[in-house]
């Protein structure tokens, strides 16, 4: 099978007034259609940078990105039709203070001219899923941080993209909400067959959700491992009791921990 996204020799340097930061160096990744892949790694290793480049929010300094057979790099931007097949969930909610909750959620529909009732109903369905239907007409300043976070999550998928990038989407939520949304995400993923790139700090979350996990190290940001996660049963919270679950978590934990230790030494 052909990968839907291929990153080849991807590099990114941030040039600031004081210094040049090599955020990523020679990153190679592949994502196959319908896969749910997590990226884990220490803070600052360039996880957000990778998906921001895939979504063409920022340009790579070197290397190429191929999505659906179309190559783009720091010269050639992604086409508008292509970008609309992608969904992006930001690390912070980035809500628009002058729009109501529902207007925030349906903004992508408005921009992409998906104004039919089916899309509107899907938006309401998602609002219901995150238990915020009652807040549809509230403004962002009237709701809590965790609520904003959840709204940011559904805004990124309301236009039913083929590829969804999620940047620590549940990072700011309590454990209960996080578990519930993890299960909802698995449901949506199964129903839609989307390809999902999921960034997280939480290894349990990565193991529960993913079919594969990329582990990264920092200074410079690079990929250190590509680990397949396989379970016999379905993905439910029961997996937590599976000895394999603990084993995967330990494996990832040590890899990330070891990386951090290496850096201290």
């Amino acid at each position: 099978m052909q990968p839907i996204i291929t990153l080849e020799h991807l590099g990114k340097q941030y040039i600031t007034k004081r210094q040049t930061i090599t955020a990523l160096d020679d990153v190679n990744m592949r994502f196959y259609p319908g896969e749910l892949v997590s990226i884990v790694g220490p803070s600052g290793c360039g996880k957000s940078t990778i998906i921001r480049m895939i979504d063409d929010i920022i340009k790579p300094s070197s290397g190429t990105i191929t999505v659906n057979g179309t190559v783009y790099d720091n010269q050639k931007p992604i086409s508008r039709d292509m970008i609309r097949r992608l969904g992006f969930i930001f690390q912070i909610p980035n809500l628009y203070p002058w729009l109501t909750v529902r207007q925030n959620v349906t903004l992508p529909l408005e921009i992409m001219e998906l104004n039919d009732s089916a899309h509107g109903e899907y938006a309401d369905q998602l609002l219901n899923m995150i238990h915020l239907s009652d807040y549809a007409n509230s403004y962002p300043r009237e709701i809590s941080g965790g609520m904003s976070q959840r709204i940011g999550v559904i805004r990124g998928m309301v236009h039913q993209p083929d590829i969804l990038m999620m940047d620590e989407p549940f990072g700011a939520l309590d454990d209960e909400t996080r578990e519930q949304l993890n299960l909802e995400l698995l449901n949506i993923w199964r129903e839609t067959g989307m390809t999902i790139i999921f960034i997280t700090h939480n290894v349990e979350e990565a193991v529960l959700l993913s079919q594969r996990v990329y582990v990264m190290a920092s200074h410079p940001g690079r990929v250190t491992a590509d680990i397949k996660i396989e379970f016999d049963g379905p993905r439910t919270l029961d997996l937590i009791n599976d000895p394999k679950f603990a084993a995967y978590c330990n494996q990832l934990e040590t890899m990330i921990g070891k990386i951090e230790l290496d850096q201290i030494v």
Partner: protein
Amino acid sequence: MKATNKMTAVIAPVIAVILIVLVWEIAVKAAQIPEKLLPAPTVIFHALVKNFPSVISKDLVISLKSIAIGYAMAVPIGFVIAAVCSQFKLVVRAVTPVLIILMVTPMTTLVPIFKLFWGADTFLKLVVIVLQMAPVVALNSLTGFANPPKSNVDVMKAMGCGMWTTFFKVALPNALPQVFTGLKLGCILGTIASMVADMAVGQGGLGYRIMIYASFASTASAFATILVAAAVGVLLFQLVSAVERLLTAWN
């Protein structure tokens, strides 16, 4: 608690005005200041009642007309200049000081020069009003448009939006408070400019009427007209503020 606060907010300034008027009345009477120099409030009020229907109201209409037409021209001009310039960082830097200079230049000083070419007519007043209003509208809008929140712009980029969609969906709503600062300052400066233009150009208007009354030493009537001019400024300001509150209800 809230209701009492609101009450005091209304009552306090009313009491202040009543006190000032009272002191003024008593002081003028007690010190026997000649009416031609400083008329008492009651005298001014009489002059207002006497002259408003037949004279001052006509000048009021002329002034309101030129301010309204001036505003209707200056606001879109200032706004479009700001919107276009804000898209280019370098242009923002280049244009900002020019707008500041234009804003602080009293445009009525140009009247004697313009008169040489156009003669004294109402068109000249409009030119002065627009020149005075447009820069302050443009400057404030430009400041607002120039730095839209990066996080919200990223959301637009993620949806593949171009520069103008981003402008209308992010930069503009985000800048509404600054835009309205410009619109409010614009109506104050425009009102002042129209009064001074009336004096310099003639052809009626509240400024012209004040000048005429003053030159005939009808001080009370002049003050009455000044009162009307002040009311125009206050009302226009309140009108724009009301529109602002309507459009920035989310804030």
